[in-house]
């Protein structure tokens, strides 16, 4: 009995440790004072201020635009890549899969500076394009990794049957393979979207010309100290990402 209570206490303390900072952050986003710690009454003014701040609105616009574009492009490239990789013979499959793992396993900062070196080499101006290309680069591997298991589960004779019945390979791809692996594609796309929205390190290094995303804004704001607008922003981001990820989780559970 005692040990059971002890276990409960332990789990409770860890959850407290995990949730306390977030709870404080969100609660004080409704606080009328500037400091956290003194409750000066309920207000929504930080939320109003948030939506009046041109820098944050611009960052929000770029965050969403890049997340949408990066997830669409990486899902398209990743889907074709996954189907192709799935059909490769043993050795080249292994090699490509290992190359695919590089951006996943490499520390973010190394991926970031290596892409920076690439853009410098090709004399690309840092800004929207470089940030988008970088996001696509780190998203594709995750898309592929979420589609490959679906391809493995698929009956490999389905596509052959379609082609025996006179379908061209492209028609078989469109009408048989892609519908079969659709759950994996959607999960991969959603994952790419959340990764892109959440990214800081790679964006931070590969942007310029006044283009920034929410993470970069948060970084520069928080280096200046506590700011209740960030609290409001975090509450909003937390809730929207929570909804999005609950959808992904539901999907992965169902399939």
């Amino acid at each position: 009995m005692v040990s059971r209570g002890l276990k409960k206490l332990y789990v409770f303390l860890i959850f407290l440790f995990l949730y306390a900072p977030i709870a404080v952050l969100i609660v004080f986003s409704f606080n009328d004072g500037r400091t956290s710690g003194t409750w000066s009454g309920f207000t929504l003014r930080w939320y109003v201020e948030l939506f009046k701040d041109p820098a944050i609105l611009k960052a929000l616009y770029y965050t969403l635009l890049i997340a949408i574009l990066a997830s669409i492009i990486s899902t398209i490239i990743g889907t074709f890549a996954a189907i192709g990789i799935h059909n490769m013979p043993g050795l080249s499959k292994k090699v490509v899969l290992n190359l695919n793992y590089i951006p996943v396993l490499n520390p973010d900062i190394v991926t970031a500076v290596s892409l920076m070196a690439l853009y410098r080499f090709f004399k690309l101006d840092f800004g929207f394009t470089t940030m988008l290309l970088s996001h696509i680069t780190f998203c594709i591997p995750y898309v592929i990794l979420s589609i490959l298991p679906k391809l493995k589960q698929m009956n490999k004779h389905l596509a052959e049957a379609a082609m025996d019945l006179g379908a061209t390979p492209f028609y078989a791809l469109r009408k048989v393979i892609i519908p079969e692996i659709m759950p994996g594609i959607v999960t991969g796309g959603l994952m790419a979207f959340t990764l892109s929205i959440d990214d800081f390190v790679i964006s931070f290094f590969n942007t310029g010309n006044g283009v920034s995303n929410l993470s970069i804004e948060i970084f520069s704001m928080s280096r200046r100290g506590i700011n209740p607008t960030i609290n409001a922003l975090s509450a909003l981001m937390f809730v929207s990402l929570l909804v999005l990820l609950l959808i992904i989780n539901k999907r992965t559970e169902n399939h």
Partner: protein
Amino acid sequence: MKRIAYPYLLWILIFTIIPLLLVLYFAFTTGDSQNFNTFNLSLENFKKFFTPIYLKVLLKSINLALVSTILCLVIGYPLAYIISREKPKNRNTMILMFIIPMWMNFLLRTYAWLTLLGRNGLVNTVLARLGLPVLDLMFNDKAVMLGMVYNFLPFMVLPIYSVLTKIDKRLLEASEDLGADVATTFKRVIFPLSIPGVITGITMVFVPAMSTFVISSLLGGNKANLIGNLIEQQFRWTGDWHFGSSMSIILMIFILITMAITSRFDKDKEEGGRLW
């Protein structure tokens, strides 16, 4: 059919392989980082790194990452164990609750500690109200460590948990039937079987902890420079990409060594490494 992967192979070549080769090239040259024509092959960058000032930073990064990894293991293992002993329905809820904080933006999660422990944070405001002296809880190495444990604890717990739940129950029954008590069963059966999860967890905490610059610049102030901060400074501010690249290479070598050591223990990579 395999030909439709070719666009991606081209993408890998341009956006993964060439960039890494460029970093390697930068690391072994000196010159004006802006102008590729001025580059000269040299080992200058590495010589510069292996001097006491920078070695101290490297050692500090290793030290902080190691201590954080150990803390994550010590805190995380019991948690993973407790959760894995629960009924399936309860443990799924508990794991979900455990993952939800991770869905908050990484920077915000780190920043949240400032609102709690910073100079004008909750704890200090309460202390000041009670007439107690204000504490300097932030902007030191302990704060960085706290940030690391907070951010990376799930990376330790989830792989261990996933291995623990897969242990065949009959093994535990067999151990009990043969007269082992709870402690012996844990020491001789459960723990050895959970090693792959522990190893994955160690890698997944150590790698980001070793290479972070965000946690140290938000919670460490100017005092807590880690190798990640040095790389950031070279690329973003100082502009010596050659030196920055050589440090990236050194960081990568460290990470590769870690992975080489751990992958020897890790047979269950696909399962253990899954976080979503």
